[in-house]
């Protein structure tokens, strides 16, 4: 599969649009169907496609696993962070109203941030899962 030029080239061409579509789903989630989960999965699928075609090692070179781990935690931290900030500002956990000048804008900011956090975690977990499964080699085990 690695040597099939059609696959290689079409993957390279598709990579950017898939991520773009992911970002669209991420940020358009307020208006239409979509949001962090779906976007995360779509972005992850771009990297998974890359790894499938060019091999796991190449995929890992494109997206190193330690960065993956950091981003994986970062998504949750962003989500929790929004909540903690709202707490520090004197409201309850995850009360977005206080984040902006008006309650509505606060809600907008809050939702945007937490959706981003969700997307980050989901996409990175999916990539990590795929990498872990795909590079699991039972011969090296034991």
């Amino acid at each position, binding site marked *: 599969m690695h040597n099939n030029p059609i696959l290689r080239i079409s993957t390279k061409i598709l990579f950017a649009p898939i991520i773009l579509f992911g970002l669209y789903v991420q940020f358009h989630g307020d208006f239409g169907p979509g949001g962090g989960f779906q976007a995360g999965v779509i972005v992850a699928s771009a990297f998974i496609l890359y790894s499938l075609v060019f091999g796991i090692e190449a995929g890992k070179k494109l997206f190193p696993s330690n960065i993956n781990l950091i981003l994986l935690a970062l998504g949750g931290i962003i989500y929790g962070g929004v909540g903690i900030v709202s707490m520090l500002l004197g409201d309850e956990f995850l009360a977005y109203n206080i984040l902006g000048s008006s309650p509505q804008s606060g809600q907008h900011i809050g939702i945007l941030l937490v959706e981003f956090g969700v997307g980050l975690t989901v996409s990175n977990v999916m990539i990590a899962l795929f990498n872990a*499964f795909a590079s*699991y080699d*039972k011969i090296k085990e034991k």
Partner: protein
Amino acid sequence: MISSTIGIWNYWIVFCLMMIGLFLVMGRKNFLKKIVGLTIFQTSVFLLYITFGKIKGGTPPILNESIDSIYSNPLPHVLILTAIVVGVATTALGLSLVLRINTEYGSIEEDDISAQDLVDYHDDIETGKSVDFKFKQ
């Protein structure tokens, strides 16, 4: 009786699907199949929730300009979004366990594995293989 049955027959289908999934989990001894069963089971439960949320003649819960449109209940949708992700997390963890089990035991059939475990257990208990202390200086 008949009219009420028509109103709820959809539930019955969902219940049947659920029970098929549950049967796969409980009845099958193959570890992979159990996970598949779990997926089917959970997906069918999602259907139950979404069925609750449906309103006849309603539209998807995305606000539009027309004033008198009826929106389907968004709450079950939210719950199920959560549940789907929880489901895939469970699946992933289960699959990784199955992989490890296959490496260690060379099989993913429950019968095989419990037979091996039993032998192992008796070895430990009866012959005291594991009695050796870690003598460290």
